[in-house]
């Protein structure tokens, strides 16, 4: 009689544990990401266990974003905030303060060797580290570790997702390197409006030249524009690329004057909407390298 009671109690207890575990699994963890590229990465690794809120959405400009009260509310409900760092999100500190955020801030670029760049005689840190797939791997590691730390139950899921993602990144790296190798060395030059491809250029051997500085706020001088036109003409750079966050009219002007083709849209700081050509991090790379190859090889 005592033994039976004991087993019934144990079974009930086990059932309760199972139910409570199931209940926990049904609630995804709320996290925030500062912009769409980060948001996609977090979603890829977190899967169904996370609900990701992204502040700067597709085609948005993360350099000059203006947070809204709704943003503050979402942030206050998040357990983790993923930011890029390296100076990209100048608007984030104010938002953190005003929302009373009590969760963990994770800087996805921790451990990366940042590039420096010169902008109007000032040396600043180039924040676009994600444009180098090698850095992308570090982003993934940081995100995975942060998710595990906040939700140890999901460790297996996170590690599996991250592994899959890393595999995809490694394959894309090969694709990109092969595509570049196919281009004749003297044609590996691109003009684009936004100085966002420094890491890409350094990693894969394409030279990017831009008429404006790193952020979208500075205005061009006649001398800068003249320099670029001269360079395009002298070195016969074949293509100018539109970039999805800044004014295209200046680029069109340069294209008109130099005869360089407008080669399509490159995605640098933001993903396209999900139905567009660059809805995820890896799709972004696929779109960019295909667009570049097409313009530079013809």
């Amino acid at each position, binding site marked *: 009689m005592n033994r039976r009671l004991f087993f019934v109690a144990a079974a009930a207890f086990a059932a309760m544990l199972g139910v409570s575990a199931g209940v926990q699994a049904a609630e995804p963890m709320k996290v925030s990401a500062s912009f769409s590229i980060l948001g996609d990465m977090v979603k890829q690794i977190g899967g169904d266990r996370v609900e990701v809120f992204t502040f700067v959405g597709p*085609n948005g400009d993360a350099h000059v974003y203006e947070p809204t009260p709704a943003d503050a509310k979402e942030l206050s409900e998040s357990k983790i905030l993923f930011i890029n760092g390296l100076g990209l999100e100048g608007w984030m500190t104010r938002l953190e303060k005003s929302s009373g955020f009590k969760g963990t801030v994770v800087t996805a670029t921790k451990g990366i060797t940042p590039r420096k760049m010169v902008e109007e005689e000032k040396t600043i840190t180039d924040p676009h580290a994600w444009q180098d797939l090698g850095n992308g791997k570090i982003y993934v590691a940081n995100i995975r570790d942060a998710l595990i730390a906040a939700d140890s139950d999901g460790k297996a899921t996170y590690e599996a997702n991250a592994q899959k993602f890393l595999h995809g990144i490694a394959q894309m790296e090969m694709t990109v390197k092969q595509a570049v190798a196919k281009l004749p060395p003297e044609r590996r030059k691109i003009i684009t409006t936004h100085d966002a491809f420094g890491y890409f250029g350094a990693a894969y051997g394409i030279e990017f030249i831009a008429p404006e500085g790193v952020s979208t706020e500075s205005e*061009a001088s006649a001398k800068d524009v003249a320099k670029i036109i001269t360079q395009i003409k002298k070195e016969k750079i074949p293509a100018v690329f539109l970039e999805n966050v800044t004014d295209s009219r200046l680029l069109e002007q340069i294209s008109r004057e130099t005869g360089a083709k407008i080669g399509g849209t490159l995605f640098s700081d933001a993903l396209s909407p999900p139905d567009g050509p660059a809805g995820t991090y890896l799709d972004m790379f696929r779109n960019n390298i295909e667009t570049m190859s097409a313009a530079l090889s013809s």
Partner: protein
Amino acid sequence: MIHAITDPFVEFAFMRRALVGCFALSLGAPPVGVFLVLRRLSLMGDAMSHAILPGAAIGFLVAGLSVPAMSLGGFIAGIAVVVLAGIVTRSTMLREDASLAAFYLVSLALGVLIVSVKGSSIDLLHVLFGTVLALDDAALILIAGVATLTMLTLAIIYRPLVLECFDPSFLSSVSRLSTPTHFLFLVLVVLNLVGGFQALGTLMVVGIMLLPAITARFWAQDISNMIVVAVAAAFAASLIGLLVSYYANLPSGPAIILTAGVGYLASMLIGVQGGLLWKLMPRRHLEA
């Protein structure tokens, strides 16, 4: 030396276009600015730049970065503010500056609301309002068209406009043209602002409208001479400003406006009409 001045324009198409655009703007905007200054409406230009925002924003939402759509939207918004402010001025005890301020602030708030509801975080102001170095054909045609229309309209309403500034009581006692003249003038202001913003950015247009006009006060006594001096000052500021932007590697819009500003300061000192230096030097008085 001459080569230093002409080389950049000979070599680069974008410099030529910029110069043409600035010259066209310098023909239309400074005369309007002269009248604005004389009527003590100098700050109106800045106010109107905010008033046109919701219209331009709606144009952008409907048709994207289209010069005609945004210009039309901006123009309608500007005219609406001008008309409403005028009606309020004429039928209540509010003066023109107060009623205009009220409407442009409402308009601006509406514009910001529309932009933020749409959710795009692209700096809309930056996108809507361009730069002199990137003038495409549509923009040049727009500026040239506005300049032509401005000159024609000013020629037609010149006399009633002058009288409206000098002695509005007299004008309304001898003619019914008072209100239409006033309205047409404000339409010209909005036109120049809208056309210019599209192509050249807010700073440039309001700057080119007002600074040469203010400068002209120190050189001319007669209103028609003032207009001529203002246009010439605007031409000079455009040319020199573009060269400064080219040689000293400074942003073009601010370079042009700062040059105009330097012109203003210099005129304040040495201008023939009331320049400070002349006031400090005692001169013998005239016969009568």
